[in-house]
């Protein structure tokens, strides 16, 4: 009985919360729909499944029923006549969560195909917000939002780890540019640019921050990063929590003001740019004294003004471009990446449809953090996969870290022969700098004695990794299963473990859990080096596993076939950061 009461209480609270969410734009989008169904075929969820319940108008109606019940004049008297209704119980809440979080990436493609001008993403976000307020959301969204509240960034990166990573990146940068004074400036006041990044760049994709640093270096830019308020991402956008939106916005804006920067530049992150440049000023209610740009706009300016020079022959690939929804449909950035790609790659292939008509990468709206819906996400990604396939490109460039993850997942799933790169990375690869880059294959003295334990059931992979690590100055030990690995750990403590997830017997996730819950081993950095079974992507969903068992995130995640430069970068980062920690 208590449970029923609690259930109905949550539903009641969600209904009440809805009544407080209306502004003029919202009531118009809720009220003007005529159920013509013209939006249906603009949605990749519908196109892939042909399920009528995936039609945008149907999904919007699950939220709209509250508007009809509480705001529509006829609906107040005759709710059923106009499709009005309330959230009555836990089942209703669950259904609404499945629709607003699990069946819509808020990409706005349907909004742009609606003759009435209904902004369905606004309706979905309203639905998300009333659920989130009751604590109802996919676990990943709740966890990431919690991280943003508590640590100021979505991956829970501590200030120490952040600064150490930047320090390590400085060394990489100096090495690559052969310039001992090249650096990523930290907390430098009065710079032209304060650069805010996606925490993924600190944690898993340092190559994109390194690329940006090279470009700033080549342009002779006066720039800095901030030790506080450096995360441009904002889960307030995805959870519907405007308070979190304002909190994250304030952190970044405060940094710019504290450092007296002339402008704020967000790195290549679609929702990060939208949230920081467009939504956060509204959520925070601040009238900013500085402009906000996306890194793409800055790069275009560098090229046009001759501050950087590019050689397209350095990228001898056929490259296509995927417009991130938050840039193409919500940020007004469509031509800049095209301009840059045409200057930095030897062959640019347009994707169709494109710009504001492009299909979502399927990872938008926070979908990459919702492991509950991974299977559906990949099923609906067939639309994007077909679109990519038609380009026959070797590389799909994009300007959003979320899209990188979404596209990488679907490329793996649909076995496409292409790689994903950020526009900035391609621009950095095409840079002409007087000082020649040095390929980072040297043996750094401080890492020579470091020991890596590699756990993988495939012997040829172990051989490959051993050779790679040994050639780069590491000592290695290989284990083909759980028993071997644990036996080794009783005798020696490695500096790093690379772990395959799909192994017979006790799989990698179980080993990971054992490591991270054991006082003796929990500090050893772990990198997942694993393949994905395209036929069963959810089989070893590490994100879900980690959330469910409240484990810390791994220090790195690399998919097979391994990209060796990236792996080496992440390995070096983990080992060096750990060394500093010990010091």
């Amino acid at each position: 009985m208590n449970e029923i009461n609690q259930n109905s209480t949550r539903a009641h609270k969600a209904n009440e919360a809805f009544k407080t969410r209306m502004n003029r734009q919202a009531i118009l989008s809720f009220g003007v729909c005529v159920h013509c169904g013209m939006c249906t075929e603009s949605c990749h969820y519908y196109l892939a499944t042909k399920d009528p319940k995936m039609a945008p108008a149907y999904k919007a109606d699950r939220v709209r029923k509250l508007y009809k019940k509480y705001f529509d004049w006829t609906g107040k008297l005759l709710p059923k006549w106009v499709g009005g209704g309330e959230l009555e119980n836990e089942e209703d809440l669950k259904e609404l969560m499945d629709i607003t979080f699990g069946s819509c990436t808020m990409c706005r493609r349907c909004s742009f195909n609606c003759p009435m001008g209904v902004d369905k993403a606004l309706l979905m976000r309203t639905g998300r917000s009333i659920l989130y307020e009751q604590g109802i959301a996919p676990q990943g969204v709740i966890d990431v939002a919690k991280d943003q509240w508590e640590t100021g960034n979505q991956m829970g990166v501590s200030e120490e780890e952040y600064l150490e990573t930047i320090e390590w990146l400085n060394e990489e940068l100096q090495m690559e540019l052969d310039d001992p004074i090249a650096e990523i400036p930290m907390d430098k006041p009065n710079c032209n640019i304060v650069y805010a990044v996606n925490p993924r760049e600190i944690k898993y994709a340092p190559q994109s921050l390194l690329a940006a640093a090279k470009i700033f270096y080549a342009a002779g830019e006066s720039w800095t990063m901030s030790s506080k308020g450096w995360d441009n991402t904002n889960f307030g956008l995805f959870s519907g929590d405007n308070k979190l939106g304002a909190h994250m916005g304030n952190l970044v804006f405060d940094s710019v003001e504290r450092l007296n920067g002339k402008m704020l530049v967000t790195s290549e992150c679609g929702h990060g740019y939208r949230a920081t440049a467009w939504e956060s000023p509204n959520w925070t209610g601040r009238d900013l004294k500085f402009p906000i740009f996306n890194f793409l706009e800055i790069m275009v300016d560098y090229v046009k003004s001759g501050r950087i020079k590019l050689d397209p022959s350095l990228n001898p690939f056929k490259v296509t471009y995927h417009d991130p929804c938050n840039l193409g449909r919500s940020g007004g950035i469509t031509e800049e990446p095209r301009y840059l790609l045409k200057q930095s790659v030897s062959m640019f292939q347009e994707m169709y449809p494109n710009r504001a008509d492009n299909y979502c990468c399927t990872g938008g709206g926070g979908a990459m953090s919702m492991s509950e819906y991974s299977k559906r996400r990949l099923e609906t990604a067939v639309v994007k996969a077909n679109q990519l396939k038609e380009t026959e490109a070797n590389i799909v460039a994009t300007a959003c870290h979320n899209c990188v993850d979404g596209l990488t997942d679907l490329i793996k799933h649909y076995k496409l022969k292409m790689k994903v790169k950020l526009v900035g990375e391609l621009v950095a690869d095409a840079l002409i700098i007087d000082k020649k880059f040095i390929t980072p294959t040297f043996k750094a003295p401080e890492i020579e004695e470091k020991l890596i334990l590699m756990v993988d059931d495939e012997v040829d992979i172990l051989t490959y990794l051993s050779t790679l690590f040994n050639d780069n100055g590491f000592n290695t030990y290989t284990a083909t299963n759980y028993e071997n690995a644990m036996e080794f750990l009783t005798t020696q403590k490695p500096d790093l473990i690379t772990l395959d997830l799909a192994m017979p017997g006790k799989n990698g996730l179980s080993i990971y859990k054992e490591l991270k819950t054991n006082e003796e081993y929990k500090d050893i950095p772990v990198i997942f080096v694993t393949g994905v079974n395209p036929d069963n992507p959810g089989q070893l969903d590490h994100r879900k596993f980690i959330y469910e068992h409240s484990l810390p995130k791994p220090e790195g995640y690399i998919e097979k076939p391994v990209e060796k430069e990236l792996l080496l970068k992440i390995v070096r980062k983990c080992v060096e950061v750990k060394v500093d920690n010990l010091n």
Partner: protein
Amino acid sequence: MDPHIISILKHEVHLIALFIMGTVYIGKIIWIMRFKPMVERTPSKGNKQKAIINSYLNIAMPWEMESTRKKWYVWTEFAIFHIGVAFAIIVSFIVSFGNESLIDKTIFQNFFMVLFPISFIITLIRLARRIFLPVNRIISHPDDYFSIILMCVWFFFASWFVYDLYNTLIMGIYLAITAFLIAYVPFSKMSHYILWPFSRYYFGKHFGHRGVYPKVRVQ
């Protein structure tokens, strides 16, 4: 039909219906304006005015959206249907308050004799689509069915009326349905045309502000 009843339908009933519609519409506009609009605090990146105009003209540019580009026949139906609605209302006004003989002019009558039956057929197609297409069925509520059936019946009698201008029974039915329609519209989904100008305005303003709209299309 009794000329007295026809006269009441033409004048008193029609005026009452118009009064109801006008009152509710004014009330609705006041109600809409009571909600605070979301205001952008950032400087505009695009041309808002151009975007708002484009947003309004979108209705007349079937090439603008993928949905209308691909389903050009639905857009064509939409265009004819709404022209039909406008003229069927105009005809009722002319009959009630204007010079009835105007409709009798061959050129107008011929035009209505083509437009209204086509509009009637389109309402049938729309009704069939709502009943038989799974997506349209699942998104339809009683109000959607009632509204399209009402339009269907209305066009049927409007068509009959313009074919047989001096049949008072048909005229009476046509005027009665028109009056009911006018009074019912503000309470139904058909009130979208009072919301549409606001909705398209804010759509254009929002996306124009952010430099997204009008869309760049280089296919």
